């Protein structure tokens, strides 16, 4: 039995080695820590002065679950990879969901001048916009190859 973290197919995934998978696992672990903090810590884990009042109107658990969900979908897409023709669609969905979440963090922080949060969230948002592009190209490739096999 060979357990592997490195998927073989998609050229974009191959080109980045374990990068995308590791990145999603890091986000997953961060979201798990965030979730644990939200559940077990007594005080608010998302101060409105940092995240913005719009973002904190949703529970911290919601945002943690949102990141976990997106990372899980992305990782599932990575592990299935080409074994299912439409696995790029899973990765595309996960990346798009991350763009939504990180974009919401960035937007929320602009409303309270939380510029550190704006920069961090924007960086992650931009990274996932790039992932959306990569997976969109994989998905287009899968569509174009339809019928050839």
């Amino acid at each position, binding site marked *: *039995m*060979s*357990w*592997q973290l490195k*998927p*073989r*197919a*998609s050229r974009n995934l191959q080109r980045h080695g374990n990068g995308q998978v590791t990145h999603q696992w890091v986000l*997953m672990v961060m*979201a*798990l820590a965030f*979730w644990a903090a939200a*559940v077990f810590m007594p005080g608010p884990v998302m101060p409105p002065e940092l995240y913005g009042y719009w973002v904190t109107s949703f529970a911290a*658990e919601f945002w*943690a*679950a949102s990141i*976990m*969900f997106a*990372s*899980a979908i992305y*990782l*599932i897409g990575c*592990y*299935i*990879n*080409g*074994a*299912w*023709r439409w696995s790029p669609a899973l990765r595309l969905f996960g990346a798009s969901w991350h763009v939504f979440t990180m974009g919401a963090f960035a937007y929320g922080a602009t409303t309270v001048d939380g510029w550190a949060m704006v920069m961090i969230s924007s960086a992650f948002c931009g990274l996932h916009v790039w992932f959306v592009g990569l997976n969109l190209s994989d998905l287009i490739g899968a569509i174009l*190859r339809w019928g050839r*096999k």
Partner: protein
Amino acid sequence: MEAIIELLLKAGVPAAPLAAIAFVMWRFRGGDMGSSESDAIRVELATLTRDHSETRERLARIEGLLSKK
């Protein structure tokens, strides 16, 4: 009791995606990724297997002919 159930429900939210990932990792372990390369390998393997069985049939036929002599 209620506190335990509440904790289990709360633990279920992070457990569900982790379980889904673990299942997929197990199901697709070894990762035949179905790329054009692996499809080509699959076709090659099928051809080799067919050729191999044909060779075995021929050998059996030759052995049969030889045993008659």
